[in-house]
């Protein structure tokens, strides 16, 4: 279980997170939605300990990772898989080396078994034929899928996905959602997604939260979102330029 408690973060005089509080239930698929620039990626960086909040706590399975020492934090991070918004692939390594990297670092597997896992992971994201290419030689959507394969390489029990389907064609997008659903084990593995692909995440999420103006403004099941009378939520779901949320 991940508890985010009153997390605040300022960059200069722009207060991006103004006291964010929510909970990700263990073993659920939870999705954070919100407009571009709302602070979703920043919040995710806080949850994996890359940024320190100015104030607040982030508690993962009972341990507050804010201010935690690196060795202890790394113990928790070993259970993580992270898909960065832009992939964050190692550009000095080929596609298969990227996926093999976490396996080499944390599993003392023999080389042939590593290659088996790598091929299997690349197979599910549809990149079996591109293993020897380098990140600069594949498309943006392909990079995202390699990032996904790398994030899932260790079969982690907490995975953070920053926009897993943005920039993908509809078929690949469907395949990614299927992959997320298939690899998820209810009650055991926690998936936390950041997305603005409303229809997609509505279908697979157990819980959805919406961030707006530095705070969580709504939180609940996909159904409760659909039927919500909250003007902010409805405007976001409808994608209407008119309403309480202004464009600027």
């Amino acid at each position, binding site marked *: 279980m991940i508890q985010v408690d009153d997390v605040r973060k300022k960059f200069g005089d722009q207060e991006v997170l103004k006291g964010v509080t929510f909970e990700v239930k263990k073993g659920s698929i939870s999705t954070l939605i919100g407009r571009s620039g709302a602070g979703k990626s920043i919040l995710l*960086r806080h949850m*994996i*300990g*890359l940024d320190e909040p100015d104030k607040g706590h982030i508690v993962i399975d009972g341990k507050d990772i804010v201010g935690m020492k*690196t060795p202890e934090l*790394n*113990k928790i*991070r*070993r259970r*993580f898989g*992270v898909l*960065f918004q*832009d992939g*964050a*692939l*190692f*550009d*000095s390594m080929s596609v298969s080396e990227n996926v093999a*990297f*976490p396996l080499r*670092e*944390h599993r003392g597997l023999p080389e042939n078994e590593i290659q088996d896992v790598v091929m299997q992971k690349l197979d599910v994201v549809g990149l079996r034929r591109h293993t020897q290419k380098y990140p600069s030689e594949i498309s943006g959507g392909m990079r995202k899928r390699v990032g996904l394969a790398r994030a899932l390489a260790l079969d982690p029990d907490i995975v953070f996905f920053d926009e897993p389907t943005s920039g993908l064609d509809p078929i690949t997008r469907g395949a990614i959602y299927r992959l997320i659903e298939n690899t998820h084990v209810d009650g055991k593995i926690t998936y936390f997604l950041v997305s603005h692909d409303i229809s997609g995440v509505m279908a697979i999420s157990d819980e959805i939260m919406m961030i707006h103006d530095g705070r969580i403004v709504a939180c609940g099941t996909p159904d409760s979102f659909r039927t919500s009378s909250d003007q902010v939520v409805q405007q976001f779901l409808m994608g209407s330029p008119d309403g309480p949320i202004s464009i600027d």
Partner: protein
Amino acid sequence: MRLVNFIKSSIVGILDMAEELLSEIGLVLMFLGEFLYWAIRPPFRIQETFRQLDFVGTQSILLIVMTGAFTGMVSVLQGYNAMSRYGAESLVGAATALALARELGPVLTGLMVVGRVGSAMTAELGSMRNTQQIDALLSMAVAPVQYLVCPRIIAASIAMPFLSAIFAFSGMIGAYIMSVEYLHIDAGAFMSAVRDYVTSSDVTQGLIKAAAFGLILSLVACFKGFNAGGGARGVGVATTKSVVLSSVLILFSDYLMTAIMF
């Protein structure tokens, strides 16, 4: 009055620069501490270190041989011009050998490696920082300093003495050819002067300097790259600063070490 103001503001400007340089050196020293912390802890990145040794060392050899040979040749020409005024032409080889072993070898190799390797290290690490590759390492519980920085600093500190020796050796070959073939100095006189005047401590001093320069330039390069922000422009700025700072520090520490070791 205007002149006084000008002098005043110049002095303030220079003091500001000195202060910035000092605080910069402080940060680099803290980075050195971090390097040492991770360097003595497993896992040791042997494979990465060899890859860097190849990049810093092997791939620099051609450049170092060429610059070394030309430096040796030009030293002989200049030395001959000066020494022939005292009728000491036959000592030109020894003088060149001393200069190459003690000073020109380590310093010029250091500056060449700053240009070829230090800049590349800063640019590579800076671009990794800006494309979140360093964050990706952190998120996978891999220490970026240990994985990226330690192999580079260790490799540069090991490779530099070898490169400096190669520089001096190529320089001596250039010097020999220049002296014997072109200036018609007696080959035996050339060699015996070198043997008589150059001691093993001259050579060791040069090698120690070279290792120190390797440490300095890779430390600065990694520090600047590791902390580069602001996209492609930021990486460009960091690379420039890295080259300037390591060149200055190499010449400064060269003076310090020479003063101490003399």
